[in-house]
Structure formats: structure tokens, C-alpha cells
């Protein structure tokens, strides 16, 4: 009789402990985010550190972003044309492609790629610095690791992400132009003209840019936090890197849903 009781109690204890740890970690993450913002001016004073991080997370992500954007746009054009031509609406291909890319796919897919390409690298780098006690060494030399290591990586990601998302959308639309106009033979005037008459700067493009800035903040914050919080072992760093990719992907998708509800309600979408 006492056996199942203790098993139940044990299970409850484990759930309670896990919940407590998760909430405490969230609190630490919020405190950490605040500390990064406080230390940002000191970190941004040495602008070259941030430029270096833009190089590593932005410039080195260019190839994967550009190639993915091109292919996503080309596939969208092929599949979109297949459906649209059944209703005799193949002239609307430009609208379909540009709205999906600018509003959703550009920021979201670029954000997911950015999380796996740059976010994981940031986490691994900071985690390894912690494991090899470089961060402690900096503190010892009165160099603040938040200003010197974390803030430049955070701002490098925040600056890179909107630019990468805009490039993704641009290449996607160009890819759709190649497939739709050059390959399938839709009229170029209808492709661009319909696109321009429907896509609105404030509602579509500006909201897309806002989304990509938000995703940049989310991914960069999760990446630097997981690296800073990683257990200082090989296993800890690998776990933190995995958590960065998983957590930032889920956070991007959840944030995208909420932003979409706020941005496009009353524009005829919902």
C-alpha cells in the first residue's frame, strides 16, 4: 500500500521541482536580458567588436540565406502557379509570392536559418569560453564579459537578422520572377503590376521588417543566454547549443503567430 503512495509522491515532487527550476531559469533569463541591455552602451563603445560579430553571424550566413531564399521563391512560384492557373488567376502569382514572402516566409524562414546557422555558433562559442574559464579570467582582469563578449554578439545578431530577412524575401521574389516569368511565361507586367497594386508599404513590408527585428532579438537573446548559462563541460555546451536551436525555433513560430494576429487583423486576413 505504501509503494504506490511513494511513487505518486515522487512523481509529484519531480513535477514540482521541474516547474520550479523552469520558472527560476526564466527569472534568471529575464535578469540576464536586463543586464545585457544595461551593459550594452559599454559594449557598443567598442564598435569594432560588434562589427566583428556582424561579420560572423551576418556575412557568413549570407550564402545559406540567399540560396534558400532563391529556392523557396522558385518552389512557391511553381506550386502557386499550379493552383492559380486552375482558376485562371495565374496573373496573381506575383501577389501570392510577394505577400507570403514579405509577411511570413521571409522573416520566419530567415529566422529559423539564422538560429541554426548563427545562434548555435554564438552559444557554442560563449559556452566554450565559459568552460575554458575565459569568462572568469576576464572578470579577474576587471573586463566585464557582459560588455566585452555578450553585448557585441547580441547586437550583431539583432542588426544582422532584419537585413538577412530582407535579402531572403528579395531573392525569393527574384526566384519567383525567374520561374514565373522566364520559365512558365507569365506576363512580366502583370507579375510586377499586380504585386505593386496589392503590396502595401506600411501593412506588409514594414510589418515584415518589424517581425524580423523581433525574431533577431529573440534568437540573439536565447543564443547568448544559453551560452552564458551552459554547464562548463563538453556535454553542457552541446546541450546548450541544441537548446538554442530548439528554443529559438519554437519562440520564433509562437511569436510569429502572435505578431500576425496583431498586425493583420482587420486587413482582411482574419
Amino acid at each position: 500500500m505504501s509503494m504506490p503512495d511513494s511513487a505518486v509522491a515522487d512523481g509529484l515532487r519531480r513535477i514540482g521541482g521541474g516547474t520550479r527550476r523552469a520558472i527560476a531559469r526564466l527569472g534568471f533569463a529575464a535578469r540576464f536580458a536586463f543586464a545585457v541591455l544595461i551593459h550594452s552602451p559599454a559594449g557598443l563603445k567598442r564598435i569594432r567588436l560588434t562589427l566583428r560579430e556582424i561579420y560572423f553571424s551576418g556575412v557568413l550566413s549570407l550564402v545559406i540565406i540567399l540560396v534558400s531564399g532563391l529556392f523557396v521563391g522558385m518552389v512557391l512560384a511553381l506550386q502557386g502557379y499550379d493552383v492559380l492557373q486552375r482558376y485562371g488567376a495565374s496573373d496573381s502569382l506575383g501577389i501570392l509570392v510577394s505577400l507570403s514572402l514579405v509577411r511570413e516566409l521571409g522573416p520566419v524562414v530567415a529566422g529559423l536559418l539564422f538560429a541554426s546557422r548563427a545562434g548555435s555558433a554564438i552559444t557554442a562559442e560563449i559556452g566554450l569560453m565559459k568552460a575554458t574559464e575565459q569568462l572568469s579570467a576576464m572578470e579577474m582582469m576587471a573586463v566585464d564579459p557582459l560588455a566585452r563578449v555578450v553585448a557585441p554578439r547580441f547586437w550583431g545578431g539583432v542588426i544582422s537578422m532584419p537585413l538577412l530577412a530582407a535579402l531572403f524575401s528579395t531573392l525569393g521574389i527574384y526566384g519567383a520572377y525567374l520561374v514565373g516569368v522566364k520559365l512558365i511565361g507569365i506576363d512580366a507586367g502583370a507579375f510586377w503590376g499586380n504585386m505593386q497594386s496589392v503590396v502595401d508599404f506600411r501593412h506588409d513590408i514594414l510589418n515584415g521588417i518589424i517581425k524580423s527585428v523581433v525574431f533577431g532579438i529573440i534568437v540573439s537573446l536565447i543564443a547568448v543566454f544559453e551560452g552564458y548559462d551552459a554547464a562548463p563541460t563538453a556535454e553542457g555546451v552541446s546541450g546548450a547549443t541544441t537548446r538554442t536551436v530548439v528554443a529559438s525555433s519554437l519562440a520564433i513560430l509562437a511569436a510569429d503567430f502572435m505578431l500576425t494576429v496583431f498586425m493583420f487583423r482587420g486587413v482582411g486576413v482574419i
Partner: protein
Amino acid sequence: MNRSTIDLWVGIFVALGLGAVLFLSLKVGNLITSGSRGEGYHIEAAFDNIGGLKVRAPVKAAGVVVGRVESIKLDPKTYEAQVSLNVEKQYQFTKDTIASILTSGLLGEVYVGLDAGGDTQMIADGGRIAKTQSAVVLEKLIGQFMLDKASAGAAK
């Protein structure tokens, strides 16, 4: 990797990114004309039924887009739909202009069509269109048709 190479690459990256934003704004979003669209003037029109008209639907004259629908409200006294149109400044319409709610094609978008009349005076900012034509509601039309058929059959 030395400093100047990093600077160069970051510069190229930022320039490319800003170029992409510019491309999206100008080529895709058509910012130049939508900018002048924002500085248009307002015309009010009341309709008995607006059908499927939505905010941001185009306003067309002779098939040319001259503005956008800005807001749609129901007048609580007359039970008419109050539609506010934002028309580009360069297009002026006569006071006897007729506004009608039309559909491009059978399944196409719903828009407001403006047919200018012969009046010499123009509608000012905030002015009102007196003559309007409501949307054709297909269900009502079919119902009317069936009623006519039935009464014609009964008369025989």
C-alpha cells in the same frame, strides 16, 4: 582575418541588406505612388448595401485606381453604410459623380467605381457623393428571379 577585410565585408553586407529593403519598398511595395496616395483627400458616400466591400479596397474611375477605401461604418440612424474614400489629390471629381460598388469579374475583388458627370463644380475635401448605387447581391437577384418565375407560373 584582419580588420579592414571584416569592415569591407560588413559594409558589403549592410549595403546589400539596405538594397534589399529598398527593392522591397520601391519595386514590390510601390512606395512612391502609395506615398502620394496617403496625401489624398476624403470623399464620403452612403450605400444601402456594400456587399463584400472591404477597407483598403481600390477606388477606380474608368478602370484606373485613383484611391482606396479608408473606413466603413454603419450609420445608426439611416442604417446605411458610410464609406469613406481616400482619393489621390491629382484626381478631382464633379459634384454629380455616381459611386457604385462593383465586382471585377465574377469572382474578382470588390471595388468602388466612380463615374464623373457633367457638373462644373468639384467635390471638395470631406465632401459627399449624393448618388450611389449599391452592390448587386447575387442571392437577392436569384430569389427575385425565382419569385418572378413562380408568380408567372401561378398566373397561367
